[in-house]
């Protein structure tokens, strides 16, 4: 919608009203993303206000109701101590998500530091840090996690750091690649030509453009981190009972799989559901940023 701007004599675009913009945005988001967002929102509620979603006290041992299959009374069944599985999954969301968020945060922070050093540190900095990133890559995540947990003990914090450090290599490489691409881009060259100071260029041009994909990376990373953390729990190096952390539930449920399949299947489904939803949202964000969103599908 163009109009003649009286002061400058140019054509400028008039911005439509906020409500129109919001409606247009809502329409452009595929239906499935709304579903995924709802799922993630539910998980977030479970993490922050578990009491809202729990049907009963997740720590309540009820020996009379052990190993009950899913039913009306217990939506997802009960475990070996008679505790309601649905409520335990809800209760475990907080710990699992905080490990997921924490680990991804640590991974991205570390990746940022490394990527910045490599991308903006000149040839020498790039060479050294790239080698460091190579070394991080060479460490299988679980191997590193095992060693960290053994030295520092098994707790939420150590799991966070172990997974965070172990998964940072990929992000570091991505950030470095972004920085290099942006650094050599046209508008940066133009800014330099105009005479802007180097730090100003970095702050105003390079960083914002290079870091924009981080949001998408973060959402993609959370699902990944939760899966790794549950792997560590599975090996028995996770948090101690009676924690309902999902990985711990999976580790415990294994022994009873043939007799009480829901103990193993349900927490795993929770992990998959979270990971898929978060990935879907992350990819959508990425697509938007790259301007490649297609709304032809619902």
């Amino acid at each position, binding site marked *: 919608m163009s109009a003649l701007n009286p002061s400058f004599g140019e054509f400028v675009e008039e911005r439509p009203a906020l409500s129109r913009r919001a409606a247009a945005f809502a329409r452009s988001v*595929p239906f499935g993303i709304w579903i995924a967002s709802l799922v993630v929102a539910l998980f977030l509620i479970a993490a922050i206000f578990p009491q809202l979603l729990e049907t009963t006290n997740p720590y309540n041992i009820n020996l009379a109701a052990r190993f009950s299959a899913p039913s009306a009374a217990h939506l997802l069944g009960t475990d070996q101590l008679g505790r309601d599985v649905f409520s335990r999954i809800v209760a475990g969301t907080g710990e699992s998500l905080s490990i997921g968020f924490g680990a991804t945060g640590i991974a991205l922070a570390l990746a940022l530091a490394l990527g910045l050093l490599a991308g903006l540190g000149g040839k020498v900095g790039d060479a050294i840090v790239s080698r460091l990133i190579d070394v991080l890559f060479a460490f299988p995540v679980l191997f590193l996690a095992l060693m960290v947990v053994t030295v520092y003990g098994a707790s939420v914090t150590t799991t966070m750091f172990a997974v965070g450090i172990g998964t940072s290599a990929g992000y570091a490489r991505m950030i470095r690649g972004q920085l290099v691409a942006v650094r050599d881009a046209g508008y940066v060259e133009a800014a330099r030509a105009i005479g802007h100071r180097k730090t100003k260029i970095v702050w105003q041009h390079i960083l914002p453009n290079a870091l924009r994909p981080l949001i998408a990376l973060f959402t993609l990373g959370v699902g990944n981190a939760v899966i790794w953390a549950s792997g560590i729990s599975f090996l028995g190096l996770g948090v*101690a009972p009676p924690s309902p952390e999902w990985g711990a539930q999976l580790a415990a449920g294994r*022994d009873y799989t043939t*007799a009480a399949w829901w103990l193993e299947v349900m927490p795993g489904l929770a992990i998959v559901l979270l990971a898929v939803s978060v990935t879907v949202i992350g*990819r959508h964000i990425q*697509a938007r940023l790259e301007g490649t969103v297609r709304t032809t599908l619902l």
Partner: protein
Amino acid sequence: MKNVARNRWKAVSLLLVAGAAALTVAGCGSSSAGASSANAASVSASTALQTTSGVPASGSNTPTRGGTINVAWEQEPPCLYGEWVQIGYLSQQYLEELVASGPKGSVVPWLATSWKVSNSGKTYTFQIRPNVKFTDGTPLTAQAVVDNFNSWFTSNPATYNGYAESEIGDVYKNAVATGPLTVQVNLNQPYYYLLSVLSQYAMGIQSPKAMSRGATAECQDPVGTGPFTVVKWNHGVDVILKRNPNYNSWPADAVHKGPAYVNGIVWKFIADDTTRYASLESGENDVVYNVPAVDWASAHQSYQVLQYNTGGNPYRLQLATQWGPFTSLQVRQAFAYGMNRPQAVAAAYLGSREYNGNGALGASTPTYDAALANNYAYNPAEANKLLNEAGWTGRNAQGYRTKDGKELTIVLPYGLDMNVTQDDLSFFQIIQQEEKRVGFNLVLQSVPPATFFSSGAGWPGIKDKFNVLPWYWVGRTPDAMHVVWAPTIQGQPNVNNVTGYQTPQLASLITDLDSTSSATLRQKYSYEIQNLVVKNALALGISPLEVNLAVTPKLHDVWLRDDVGEPVFSDAYFSK
């Protein structure tokens, strides 16, 4: 990313995956997990040692030659010779001791055909069985036996025998070959239980020639006189044992006198409980160790189930008396009253393990005091009263008691990978909730084994950081209590005494128990020690450590030796 998420279909496919997963797994598992405490079949009273229940052996009872036994064990040991009990189950197939553990703490001849004890009780003279050869061809002589003794008490880390040191290190002087087949073992003070110690799996006699090959060979491929020999160790998979055709040194209590009936054993390592038990159901294995509690009842419907309750110090909660809330006797007793141990054992172990309330001694051990079996029966009212008397009258927001602003926190560490099962964790969680009701905050903490033993003098290395430690020390006789309650071992403070409780009275009772030869007095001292331990709430019993096997009905005459319940396969045969 150019491809936009095809989200609705993603949601559907996810649901399909979920549904498929749920349906398939659900449709298949049996639902017998709800088995109540297993009165399945005829598990006998707790003073019995080996019980055989389940399905009887099938087919003809005439022994036949041939076949290979496929055994699925759990943990792969780091070496094929050593003092860990996990090694013992395996090493007893190819190593033998001077004497064999018989029932009720007795010993019967094995590699030693007879023995004499001097009047002073300080000299034992053994006659060694003639015409026995190690499987590498060297003869079993008195000197070979002496060489073994010497290797146990050296500082060579490869052969150093921690078990021997703990049990008889304080009393052992030397061993001498006084004849080609006569060995004299000299002690510097009488020790009534020497024979019993010598019968334990850690005291197997190896070929000195084989020992001289060095630590690696001794670890990978030890050589003994037993009914089987080690052929190959496929690390991470199994150990192949083959029959010793020249076997002639069976113990006096062997079911048959002769070499093994079967051609060999494939001893596999399957750490995962579900997979291991399933391999029995699928017929891939004939014998499976450690039936998961969840399958305990159903195992009795299809297999022979052998169970051995070890004696000595049972699996129990030991309370640290030197620091923290448990310095007070009242608090310890309150802790004991605040949980219903027999019910927790029944619920957690689903009948596969028995309750042993007496924390000082296992029910199958001679001189066990049955009157202590139900000590500190669940009584939350009493627990509350005692805690109030001890000054823990405050309550914080979570409901735990406080005193002078400090919370009543009890830390219980358990070793990762040290045979702590999901069932053990279930037991801890049950008592955790019960203790919460009377105001204790029982915190469970997992610790890697390396840390368990490290920093400082063993267990106290995690001192100040734990208040209750679950552990056991197996033995067949009451002198197992010596290992835990003696004030010193080899001149050092006894680190096996996790509780830190020590009085001259206890110390002298232990010494008396070890040295007296009067059965009546032994009984008396043992009773007094047990009562002391229980009265002071030092150790709260949970369950005896047990060995259980599920055996296919067509394999006859497998039995568990009254030592640590190690399986004996030299008498076993397949029926047609």
